């Protein structure tokens, strides 16, 4: 028999701090000094951590809210030229993403509870380095954020990338403003009844309101009173509402909303706000007779350099607005002429198009697959299967 002992905690708070330092150079720098020769093996490989190159226009960030486990969502970084996974980020409860215009930072709006699903709630903007996929800091959102199945217009950067706007419904509706240069929460602006954020300038944005109008907000980051200007209704929010996911181009200032019935409302980013300038239809009489209509989730994408609009279309009756698309319809946004119909092997929920001159078109399916097409020839380039549980949103650079 031997006498044992009770032992004190080995790794306390201090222990973890030490372990964090430990990580930096361990794989590379630990020598073999002092070890007996028989304990040393020839080491044929260093064990390193991959670092990504500069963000490429052909990369796409795929946000998966993971419906069966909403507190364990993920964002996959995928190289469209492959396609293959380059890495991933763990994100919190129903997160949103924004990509800096200078491509040097990724912003994740996310919510955590201290014990996973219970305990104190914390809402934060987390900053990521897109090359290392490591968090580099966070800013707490003291007023929280809107908890909903992730939608892109819940979070957006102002046009110059200085302020991050996070839509909040608690259920009163506000917009939280964060200065991402100083990594500082600026405040919340109350905009009763209107939803989502569509940035229109360096310190301004518009929102969609229940009566089919936009409201235009200009804020003073120094704390002066925001100006809130109501617009006139431009669509019939009872008979034919517009989808939440619009195509908004910071590059050429053009905006496209699409309605349940396939009406396009074209807008322009103006100093005074988002101005609706024209309206046309995606479907002609024949299309309509066949039941073609837009649907899905992020159902719209716009390629600014070529003025092309991509829309997910399916055949169905009224109230099938969330049904995945059987085809992508491609329109010339200037002539409003349909240029192509691209059939999809996997019906798709979401679409994105890279903003370079050799663009790729990404289609994300309900079956968790991502298919990549040449966005000019519409040739299928490849499909990545099994991309998480329930991937829902796509983000590319320079949108």
């Amino acid at each position, binding site marked *: 028999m031997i006498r044992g002992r009770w032992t004190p905690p080995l790794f306390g708070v201090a222990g973890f701090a030490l372990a964090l330092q430990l990580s930096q150079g361990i794989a590379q720098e630990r020598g073999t000094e002092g070890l007996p020769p028989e304990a040393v093996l020839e080491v044929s490989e260093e064990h390193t951590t991959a670092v990504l190159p500069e963000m490429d226009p052909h990369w796409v960030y795929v946000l998966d809210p993971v419906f069966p486990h909403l*507190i364990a969502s993920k964002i996959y970084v995928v190289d469209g030229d492959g396609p293959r996974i380059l890495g991933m980020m763990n994100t919190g409860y129903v997160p949103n993403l924004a990509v800096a215009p200078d491509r040097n930072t990724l912003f994740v709006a996310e919510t955590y509870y201290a014990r996973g699903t219970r305990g104190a709630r914390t809402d934060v903007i987390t900053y990521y380095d897109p090359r290392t996929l490591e968090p580099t800091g966070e800013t707490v959102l003291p007023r929280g954020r809107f908890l909903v199945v992730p939608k892109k217009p819940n979070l957006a950067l102002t046009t110059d990338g200085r302020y991050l706007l996070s839509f909040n419904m608690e259920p009163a509706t506000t917009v939280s403003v964060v200065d991402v240069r100083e990594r500082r929460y600026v405040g919340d602006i109350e905009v009763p009844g209107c939803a989502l954020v569509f940035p229109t300038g360096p310190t301004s944005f518009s929102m969609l309101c229940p009566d089919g109008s936009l409201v235009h907000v200009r804020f003073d980051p120094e704390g002066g009173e925001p100006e809130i200007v109501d617009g006139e209704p431009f669509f019939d929010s009872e008979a034919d509402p517009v989808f939440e996911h619009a195509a908004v181009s910071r590059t050429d200032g053009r905006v496209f909303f699409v309605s349940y019935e396939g009406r396009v409302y074209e807008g322009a980013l103006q100093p005074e706000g988002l101005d609706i300038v024209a309206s046309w239809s995606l479907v002609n009489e024949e299309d309509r007779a066949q039941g073609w209509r837009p649907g899905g989730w992020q159902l719209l994408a716009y390629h600014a350099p070529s003025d092309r609009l991509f829309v997910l279309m399916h055949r169905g009756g009224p109230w099938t*607005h969330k049904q995945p698309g059987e085809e992508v319809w491609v329109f010339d946004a200037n002539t409003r002429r349909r240029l192509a119909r691209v059939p999809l092997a996997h019906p798709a929920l979401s679409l994105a198009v890279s903003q370079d001159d050799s663009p790729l078109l990404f289609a994300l399916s309900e079956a968790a697959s991502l298919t990549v097409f040449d966005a000019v020839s519409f040739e299928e380039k490849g499909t990545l299967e099994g991309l998480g549980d329930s991937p829902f949103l796509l983000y590319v650079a320079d949108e």
Partner: protein
Amino acid sequence: MSTVAMRVLDRVAERMSRLAAQRTSRRGLLARIGALVVGGAVLPLLPVDRSGRIQRARAQAFAETAQTTDPTQCNYWRYCAIDGYMCSCCGGGPSTCPPGTYPSPSSWVGTCINPDDGQAYLIAYRDCCGKDSCGQCACLATEGEMPVYRPQLNNDIVWCFGAPNMVYHCSSAALIGKA
């Protein structure tokens, strides 16, 4: 309920009212089709259209293939505009939250037709909150479902406002009256 709790709830309700009043004054749309329900009572922010005329047209298609006996199936009559995991598969029922989860005191209201009597009923779509996704029996019905800028008719929202915590567990569909 404690007076402290009442005050919090009142504040939520007051904000919802203000929000709704401001926007509905323009065209009265929300007044016709939406209602925020807190507890068993519709808050006075919106007069409710009891004729159910508009909703009825929307709910008709769903009712054609609906049944009234098995709340673990997506075609259960009350689920005409539900989205998520059905509480009936998770240890709860259409108006019972599974153990350890809380019915949201707030909800949105839809109108479904009971195929047995052909009548339209008001259904409060309350989430059960406080545990991570139940993961069983996913259903998505979109009859009359509207974008989130019309929150009283949107089924993507985590309807846990006023619950102890905002983690979505499952979706329930409580019967609250005739439309």
